[in-house]
């Protein structure tokens, strides 16, 4: 069962044995968190931030695993796909080198018309300022931290060479080794929505990434969360970037054990002055899974944060993504793509807090909805009175691929400063008849033409991922979602 009482009981049973249970601050956070969860319960549509997504069914929902998986197999498949993507992108880079083709830059630049005042190349391409990694990367380059059923699996993980001042490891280990540092980043029981409180009560592991001043980790840090046999798992990832630090972090949630499983995840990012953090989340959970996750960033002066959320799996996926531009001149990119079919439901609830002057935010979400799926997007932008010369732009576009699919896109702008540039737009539409006819009139059959147009619509989001192998990975994951007998990969 997954009723509130069940979790209360479980907390009483196991709290004393959880990692870090001896740390008074942590025990307090957990107690308060379960208390808050018990008070507030599973959110229903009566709750302001859950107008289109109710978790009331969780009260009756039994969690169960019908079929377990071997984490080694999931991991091998994931890494093979990443290697293929790395090769594809290296191949593309060499094929077009010297040409004028650079989809990332041109794709975004053309949308920036309208007199942008200040040069901000870093935000819109999201590439760390450090030299780009060489195109001839070794297979499975990067750092791979694997978590099985919510716990770090060192035997499956592989952390490559790191510069001094970079710590990458598990939260459970960090709680033993540097509990004070963890305390400062852990968050508390009142953060976010009730599922985040549930996460705070039960999460014992996740990634711990700490980058000292000026440290740049060039290769992506991959976090892989496999569910092998457990009905539920609760992960908390803490990323602390000191001034000028740079890293690219990828959270993978591959399809794992079949059955009604629950994942809660909370990723907290503290981005100090002039740091540059790129975060990519690839959610591909099994079709019956319930996925409730939070990404919460705080950006100091001049910090750059790019979030790419690709949400393709799960029966119900809810992502709360927040960032607070806390220091002057910070830049945020919230970029996302969701796909749902059948009776699946996907909800992105985003919030950008412009709390300091001269911040820039760009938010682009696109949804593909098929079957009788439902997609929800909420884009809240708050511009505080002090946040003068804020430049915020938000777009959400949805493509309905069937008559029964539904999309809700809701911008919410609250602006208290007077010297700001804010723009937003939302659309819900179908495949363009003119474009479809144009392609068919050139000999492409209707199915192929629809696939091409669907893929092209979605790929615009992927074009904003500057890191070529990760962009290729996103494309590969998208292609797996689209029924494509056509050779769409050539589109990239």
């Amino acid at each position: 069962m997954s009723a509130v009482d069940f979790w209360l009981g479980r907390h009483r049973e196991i709290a004393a044995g959880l990692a870090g249970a001896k740390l008074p601050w942590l025990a307090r956070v957990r107690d308060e968190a379960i208390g808050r969860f018990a008070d507030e319960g599973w959110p229903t549509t009566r709750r302001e931030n859950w107008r289109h997504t109710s978790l009331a069914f969780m009260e009756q929902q039994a969690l169960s695993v019908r079929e377990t998986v071997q984490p080694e197999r999931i991991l091998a498949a994931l890494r093979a796909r990443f290697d293929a993507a790395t090769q594809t992108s290296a191949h593309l880079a060499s094929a077009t080198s010297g040409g004028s083709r650079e989809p990332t830059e041109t794709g975004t630049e053309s949308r920036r018309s309208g007199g942008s005042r200040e040069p901000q190349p870093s935000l819109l391409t999201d590439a760390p300022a450090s030299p780009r990694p060489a195109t001839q990367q070794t297979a499975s380059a990067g750092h791979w931290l694997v978590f099985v059923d919510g716990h770090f699996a060192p035997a499956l993980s592989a952390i490559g060479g790191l510069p001094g001042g970079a710590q990458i490891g598990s939260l459970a280990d960090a709680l033993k080794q540097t509990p004070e540092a963890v305390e400062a980043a852990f968050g508390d029981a009142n953060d976010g929505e009730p599922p985040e409180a549930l996460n705070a009560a039960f999460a014992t592991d996740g990634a711990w990434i700490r980058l000292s001043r000026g440290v740049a980790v060039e290769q992506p840090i991959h976090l892989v969360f496999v569910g092998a046999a457990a009905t539920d798992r609760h992960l908390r990832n803490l990323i602390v970037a000191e001034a000028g630090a740079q890293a690219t972090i990828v959270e993978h949630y591959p399809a794992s054990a079949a059955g009604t499983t629950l994942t809660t995840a909370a990723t907290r990012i503290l981005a100090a002055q002039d740091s540059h953090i790129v975060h990519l989340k690839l959610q591909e959970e099994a079709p019956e899974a319930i996925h409730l996750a939070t990404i919460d960033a705080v950006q100091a002066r001049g910090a750059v944060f790019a979030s790419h959320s690709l949400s393709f799996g799960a029966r119900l996926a809810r992502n709360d993504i927040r960032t607070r531009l806390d220091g002057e001149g910070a830049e945020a990119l919230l970029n996302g793509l969701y796909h749902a079919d059948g009776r699946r439901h996907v909800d992105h609830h985003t919030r950008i807090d412009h709390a300091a002057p001269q911040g820039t935010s760009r938010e682009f979400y696109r949804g593909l909805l098929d079957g009788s799926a439902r997609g929800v997007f909420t884009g809240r932008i708050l511009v505080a009175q002090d946040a003068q010369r804020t430049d915020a732009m938000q777009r959400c576009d949805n493509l309905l691929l069937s008559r029964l699919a539904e999309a809700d896109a809701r911008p919410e702008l609250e602006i208290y400063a007077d010297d700001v540039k804010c723009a937003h737009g939302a659309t819900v539409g179908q495949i363009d008849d003119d474009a479809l006819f144009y392609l068919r009139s050139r000999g492409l059959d209707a199915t192929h033409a629809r696939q091409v147009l669907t893929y092209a619509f979605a790929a615009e989001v992927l074009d904003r991922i500057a890191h070529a192998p990760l962009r290729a990975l996103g494309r590969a994951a998208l292609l797996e979602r689209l029924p494509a007998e056509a050779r769409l990969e050539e589109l990239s």
Partner: protein
Amino acid sequence: MLKINNLHASVDGKAILKGLDLEVGDGEVHAIMGPNGSGKSTLAQVLAGRDSFTVTDGNVDWDGTDLLALPAEERARAGLFLAFQYPVEIPGVSNAYFLKAAVNAIRRHRGLPEFDAMDFLARVKAEMKAVGMKEEFLYRSVNEGFSGGEKKRNEILQMALLEPKLAVLDETDSGLDIDALKIVADGVNRLRSPERSMIVITHYQRLLDYIVPDQVHVLSQGRIVRSGGRELALELEEHGYGWIDTAKGGERASGAPGARP
């Protein structure tokens, strides 16, 4: 040979084509002229298979095939090509992908081996040169941000690559300056051959200075009301479309010159 017989078509219940007859022999170039609203573009779209138009009567025989029974893509594969009056922009699909997918769809249908990337590039680059398009247009999204002239050149490029048996050019000259017009006309003239028929739809005589038709037809209120040689176009140029109605001998003579039906 294309035979259009008593073609009636409507859109949203409104009749546009009202009994159109036309025969185009192999290798012939026919010009269709007519005022705005006379049904020129509807004819082009109906021939290409746009399903927002409903054919209410008549038939189209194309070398023994019932053209109207085929879906748009099969018409294209069988060798029909429509150069669009307003080529469609398709963000996110590169021109290179689009052109190659189109060429290979048609080659498959003809039992020819598909082009691989290298063969295709060699072929497309040669044709692009011929229509004066820079290579960068291969890597841009289909028609996106192209000028009017660039879009029309892209249409001619597609026509050259797809080697149709029957090409319908829908006001390919509209909006072009004289230089662009010449390039487009050169592209068309290069493709003239005894196996290829063309229907050139235009509002203005000007295009026919460069693409010399075998026959000129005047379309008015959904029907061909006059047919003749090239001199018919010149007469039209001199007298305007109002002349057609009066010259027809009264049936609709009361219509003001150039009035929409």
